[in-house]
């Protein structure tokens, strides 16, 4: 309990510090910080439309945050969410195209949808598991390998959509063949946000339960806490590493599949627009806790969603919201130094 209060207080403090820093940045640019924050609220959360935009942004962020958070519990710093999302998107499109004949075979279209999502998750899982395998078998640093795998995934995507998978009928932009309309999903009734949001929330809840209540989750935490100790007690380190990576990658891959079946309908360079990198920020804000990811993904999604409005109302460059996100990231990292140093949150010594 006390630990959780400590985390909440320190993270809140870091957020406030970031807002204060950003206010200085705004003042230096001759803008009124309070007015800007009011518009940030309006654009991110203030109207039903803003909230819709925010939740739409948050959907892929939750899933890509898992790509960093789950391996982090096993002591790995994975930043390959972007690549896994792209890989998932490509696999999802392949599955969507592959199951296009279902209707003629008399099967419901939902089979195609499920296959598309499963293929996306599997693609992302395999992508990050590669980095896990490299780490375990060859000792390759997973941070570097996942970063480089991002570039590889995007290059492969660009190759596929401008070559082998290209739909020549779409001339505006190199785009793959579109998956069947029946395979696509609409929006969640009532809130007007696409189903990727529900996938994100469910995936975060499942990940939380898995890490919290199962032997696997406990083993992963032991591995992340101290790899030598894990080895000593005989935990299967290789398997745990691979599974943690695969689960994380599966999350990001599912994000790619959701972008395909709910938004784009086909693969193109529009898949790689930075949700993978945004997910890293969300994972760190959440201190790798999947439940907290839901909350922070919405917060970061709101900041992104309000970017356009801030740009239009205050003539701020569109990078302004990225500056804010960067400041939040720095403050949260720096706030790690405060853990264990605030007396209020320390266990009191038992009186002798």
């Amino acid at each position, binding site marked *: 309990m006390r630990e959780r209060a400590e985390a909440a207080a320190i993270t809140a403090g870091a957020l406030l510090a970031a807002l204060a820093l950003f206010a200085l940045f705004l003042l230096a640019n001759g803008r009124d910080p309070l007015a800007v924050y009011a518009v940030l609220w*309006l*654009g991110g959360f203030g*109207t039903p*439309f*803003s909230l819709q*935009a925010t939740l*739409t942004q948050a959907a892929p962020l939750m899933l890509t945050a898992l790509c960093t958070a789950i391996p982090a519990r096993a002591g790995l710093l994975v930043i390959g969410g972007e690549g896994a999302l792209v890989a998932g998107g490509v696999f999802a499109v392949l599955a969507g195209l592959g199951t296009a004949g279902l209707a003629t075979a008399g099967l419901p279209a939902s089979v195609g949808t499920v296959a598309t999502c499963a293929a996306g998750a599997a693609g992302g899982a395999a992508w990050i598991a590669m980095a896990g395998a490299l780490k375990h078998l060859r000792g390759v640093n997973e941070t570097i390998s996942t970063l480089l795998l991002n570039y590889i995934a995007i290059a492969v995507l660009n190759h596929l959509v401008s070559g082998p998978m290209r739909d020549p009928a779409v001339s*505006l*932009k190199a785009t793959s063949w579109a998956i069947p309309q029946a395979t696509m999903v609409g929006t969640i009734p009532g809130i007007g946000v696409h189903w990727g949001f529900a996938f994100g929330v469910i995936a975060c809840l499942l990940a939380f339960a898995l890490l919290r209540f199962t032997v696997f989750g406990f083993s992963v935490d032991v591995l992340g806490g101290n790899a030598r100790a894990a080895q000593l007690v005989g935990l299967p380190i290789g398997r745990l590493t691979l599974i943690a990576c695969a689960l994380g990658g599966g999350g990001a891959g599912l994000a790619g599949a959701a972008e395909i079946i709910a*938004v*784009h309908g086909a693969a193109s360079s*529009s898949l790689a*627009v930075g949700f993978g990198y945004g997910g890293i920020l969300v994972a760190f804000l959440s201190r790798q806790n999947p439940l907290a990811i839901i909350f922070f993904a919405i917060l970061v999604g709101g900041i992104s*969603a309000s970017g*356009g*409005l801030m*740009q*239009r*109302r205050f*003539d701020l*460059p*569109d990078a302004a919201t990225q500056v804010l996100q960067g400041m939040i990231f720095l403050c949260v990292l720096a706030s790690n130094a405060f853990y264990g140093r605030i007396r209020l949150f320390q266990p009191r010594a038992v009186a002798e």
Partner: protein
Amino acid sequence: MDHSKRNSRRKFLADSGNVIAAGSLAALLPGLARAQAKPMTIGFLYTGVRQDYGWNQAHGVAARQIARLDGVKLLEQENVPETAESEKVMESMIRLDGARVLFPTSFGFWPFIMKVAPKFPEVLFVHAGGLWKDGDPKNTIGYRGYMEEPHYLSGIAAGRMSKTGKIGFIGAKPLYFIFNNCNGFILGARSVNPKITCQVLITGDWNNPVKEAEAVNSLVDQGVDVIVGNTDSPKVVIETAERRGIYSCGYHTDLSALAPKGFLTGAEWNWGKGADFVRAWQTGGTYPNLLRGGFKRDMVKLSPFGAAVPEAVRAEVLRARQGFADDKLALYRGPLKDNEGNVVLKAGETIDNEDNKFKFGVKFLVEGAIGKTGLAR
């Protein structure tokens, strides 16, 4: 392709959207409407940044021009991706800022306009691209200028100024309008110096500064001494040409500042024409859903002449501009061969400057071009 019936395509024109457009244009004349103009917020969406020395800048300049209309307030958003995200930006401008006319300025925004426009009949969507067709929402407009006409004028200046008789064209993609611009440039140059040849290079990318600079350098090494670039931002082309000490012509917007010594003139869009649509929407006037045109319809402009261009050449260029404006000068006129020796037009045959069907089908480079379209004819 059938080359014999070109002249009869004037008939095609007679019932084409452009002419309907021209008819309703008359109703747009401001003056009388000005009194009733009500306050209106307009929104511009750019795929890149406004100061890109190219496509976006041309729209940014127009936005400021349109914002000078009575009662018009301008909103702008840069770096809007050509994805479903752009739908959110449009909706956000409408719902949160109350915009009533939107200018999603990139070609790739069109499919998303088609999704948003039916939801907001009170908003006018003006798209730079001329993709509107029958059956599309009435609150959407497509407009685009014939840039081959100002390229023809650049070509005249290039033809007069070139000492080596070799000029160069760097294009982004093998697309019909790029070929039209290239042909216009060459036809203009050869109208004043029939011996001119033009090296044509297609980079394959809308934006690839490294390739563009390499292309300029290789052309200069081959003796080319006037260059024009048809990419999203020809900044690199013009700066490299200036560094190598050759002449250059602009594209999209006024780029004369980039090359104080070697800039001749350039082809510019007149997107400021969008003011007519805003005015019509403000006052309940009529507007065309599709508007294509050249100098005759005031849809294109010529950049200011660079210091290097002598008075006589300027006068010659301006005469040709008047020719387009008065519809007395046709860009494609016979006898005309392509650069593989095939006859495109016989002597006496002329293509109307507004013959879209012909222009959309251009897959050839005219005689004098050294290079290939890379397309099957």
